[in-house]
């Protein structure tokens, strides 16, 4: 196991280096100048500003410089979004709210989704089942920005249960954004668990358990649920990606000082160092999630050989 994890971490570092390289050169062909109001700067000033951010040096030099900095955990300095601010500081200061709503959304969605899926499977083809299906449909058929603004309008403005927007009232502020983010994991988990549970409930060992006189609850939780849960881990990766994407939208609509909202802005103003830094940050997050999922899978289901392909 330790050897496997070690190997994976080495791969991770290589992957990250390649991603950084890829993004770096992609960034260089991106149109747009990172120096805002370049039209007002004189050629002399421009040269000075470019020199300050090292934009005047040959590309390979810039590249190795960046990679070297990256090794030391230095992501550079924002060029125009927050002039002169350390990219690491920007990311750190924006990470908190994103992490909070992302985590809450994920947990809320997954837990509710599992419950819904379970109930639906146990009460197959009853109204319980149908209503859980309905919820799952809403989760996948309304774009998150529409859903988020409807939540804001109904629960925030009309009913006044939660703050309309802004990041001021601690946990209360995070409720609506979390619900908006929870929809996708909820729908995914509910559908997934339902299908898996129905399959498991029909399998021989459940019949055996029934034959041995196990109670309904015992069967549902001890046998069916546990086995249905395992495959769910495989969709945690895609869910994390969806949360990441969703955060861009949800943070903007609820005016939350998060990293997604900030990322969209940095693209619009071509702030190369922030785009690079945020991309690398997102990648680290994603790769870690994938790694954790793989490790968890190995722990929970001993049938999977970790060293082999994931087939």
């Amino acid at each position, binding site marked *: 196991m330790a050897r496997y994890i070690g190997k994976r971490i080495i791969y991770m570092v290589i992957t990250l280096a390649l991603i950084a390289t890829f993004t770096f050169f992609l960034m260089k062909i991106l149109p*747009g*100048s990172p120096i805002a109001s370049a039209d007002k700067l004189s050629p002399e000033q421009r040269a000075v500003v470019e020199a300050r951010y090292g934009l005047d040096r040959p590309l390979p030099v810039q590249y190795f410089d960046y990679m070297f900095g990256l090794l030391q955990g230095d992501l550079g300095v924002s060029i125009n979004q927050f002039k002169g601010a350390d990219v690491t500081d920007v990311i750190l200061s924006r990470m908190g709210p994103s992490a909070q709503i992302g985590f809450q959304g994920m947990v809320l969605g997954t837990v509710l989704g599992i419950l819904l899926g379970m109930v639906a499977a146990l009460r197959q083809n009853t109204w319980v089942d149908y209503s859980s299906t*309905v919820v799952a449909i809403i989760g996948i058929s309304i774009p998150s920005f529409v859903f988020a603004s409807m939540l804001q309008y109904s629960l925030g403005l009309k009913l006044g249960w939660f703050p309309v927007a802004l990041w001021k009232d601690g946990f209360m502020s995070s409720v609506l954004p979390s619900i908006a983010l929870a929809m996708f994991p909820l729908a995914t988990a509910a559908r997934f668990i339902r299908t898996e549970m129905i399959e498991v409930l029909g399998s021989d060992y459940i019949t055996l358990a029934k034959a041995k006189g196990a109670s309904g609850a015992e069967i549902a939780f001890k046998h069916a649920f546990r086995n249905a849960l395992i495959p769910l881990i495989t969709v945690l990766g895609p869910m994390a990606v969806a949360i990441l994407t969703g955060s861009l939208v949800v943070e903007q609509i609820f005016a939350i000082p998060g990293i997604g909202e900030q990322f969209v802005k940095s693209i619009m103003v071509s702030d190369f160092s922030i785009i690079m830094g945020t991309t690398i940050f997102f990648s680290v997050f994603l790769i870690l999630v994938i790694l954790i999922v793989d490790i968890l899978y190995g722990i929970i289901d001993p049938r999977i050989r970790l060293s082999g392909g994931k087939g």
Partner: protein
Amino acid sequence: MKNSKLFWLLGLVLVLSIFLAACGGGEETDGGTETPDSSETDTSNTDDGGDDSASTEGGEPDAEQVLNLVEGAEIPSMDSAIAEDSVAFNILNNVNEGLFRLNEENIAVPALAESEPEISEDGLTYTFKLRDANWSNGTPITAQDFVFAWQRALDPEVGSPYGPYMMAGTIKGAKEVSEGADPSELGVVAEDEKTLVVTLERPTPYFMSLMAFGTFYPQNEEFVTEKGDDYASNSDNLLYNGPFVLTNWDGTGLTWTMEKNEEYWDAETVTLETINVDVVKETSTALNLYQSGEKDRVGLSGEFAMQYADDPEVVKELEPTLFYLKFNQERNGEETPLANENIRKAISMAFNKQDLVDVVLANGSLPANYLVPTEFTFSEDGEDFREINGDLTGFDATKAQEFWQTGLEEIGQTEVTLELLGGDSELAGKMDAYLKEQLETNLEGLTVNLKAVPFGVRLELDEAQDYDIQNSGWGPDYQDPMTFIDLFVTGASHNLMSYSNEEFDSLVEQAKGELAQDPAARWEAMAEAERILIEEDAAIAPIYQRAVMALQKPYVNGIVSHPFGGDYSYKWAYISGKE
């Protein structure tokens, strides 16, 4: 498993009902807001530079003096030398102050300067006496603070976008200093603690209004040097000398507060205690915050304008910001069809501006047939510069078609395809779609391809002259028609469309040089230049002069909007009648 599938349909019904619920709720609220059957307010010209109806009706300040506002973007930098965007200039205008400040009538009046300066005969030397005023940390503001700030703004190492841009050609030695000469060559001297002498390159009739601009604010040398790289990185690493001080700003956040500055020399005028600002990028979110009572004033964009047109809480302000189509005459070293004067004239007459401002913008903007905005600059007898030339072009489909045919013959083509470069905002997209449709309908054989890009990309394409037509906008940097007119001088940094007319250039040169001391002749020269640019050459096609529409709670009084520099002053604002 299978039967349940039919109940996906049920889901659909629910989805629908959510929509309906949302809509139904909407009607309810709208009904709830009582809309007195007031006669329609004249949308076009009620604005008097921020003197909006709401502020004149207001009573005495009585409630808690807290104002809650939204802003559309973060602060990129609070260093007055580096600042370049409207958010930063707006805050600077409220937490700092220069020699002059725009008052409630938008006239530049002495602020840190004790009185009007002494001006030499030739109009080249200004001597300012400073009043006794302190920085927010208690240090007195001295003439040296101005010398330091201005020299710093010109230092190439600092990379100030507005420093050389505003000072070069105006203040003596500014160009040389910005190119690396010794800072002491700058024509700004602190004669003593409280006396500042400024020497100009040439007489500048609008110099006083420049002094209200953020780049000309003082900076305390000791403080700036002590903080080094950390200067202006958050609200603690800044010094203030204006009506308010900035607090709670961490440098990258979406929220900040302005609190009354007790050290301010005119603190007794300031009524507001606290201004809470949050960045909200979605108009619909801002509107919801307004309706829930968390915010006191929010801007309304075009799509919301129609719904609130008759709302008593609506405030409309005409801004001196002009939007126009730039015609690029030379792209990648080759002449474009737009190098032909008739083609340009045809395009500039081929779209209906009235419909555009009425339906697409719907916020009180005016159709523009000119370059220098209306209600922006006034002669000494109070005559609007606009009155000299009036309209210089206008929508006329028939005439446009005539010009178009002549132009096509001249360039020997029957079909022309042009690219229209525009911004990536929703409004820009809508407007460009409208222009495309209008131009293609009114000019036979014209195909317009739209290209919407983020602002940074647009600047780059502009600079490379890599576009055909560009939807561009310009707001003034100081209160003089010249801020618009000299944009189009041959080789100017904003020209970037290969427009060149010797007569135009020489008129601008005259207005800047020999006529500077003769206001009437100077205005004539500028007016003639404007006429040549638009009526004769159709170098650009004006579209509209922007107005902004906002919802403002009735208890908010005295917010003053400004035509240039910072957008608003809260110095005179107060809350009255809030429960």
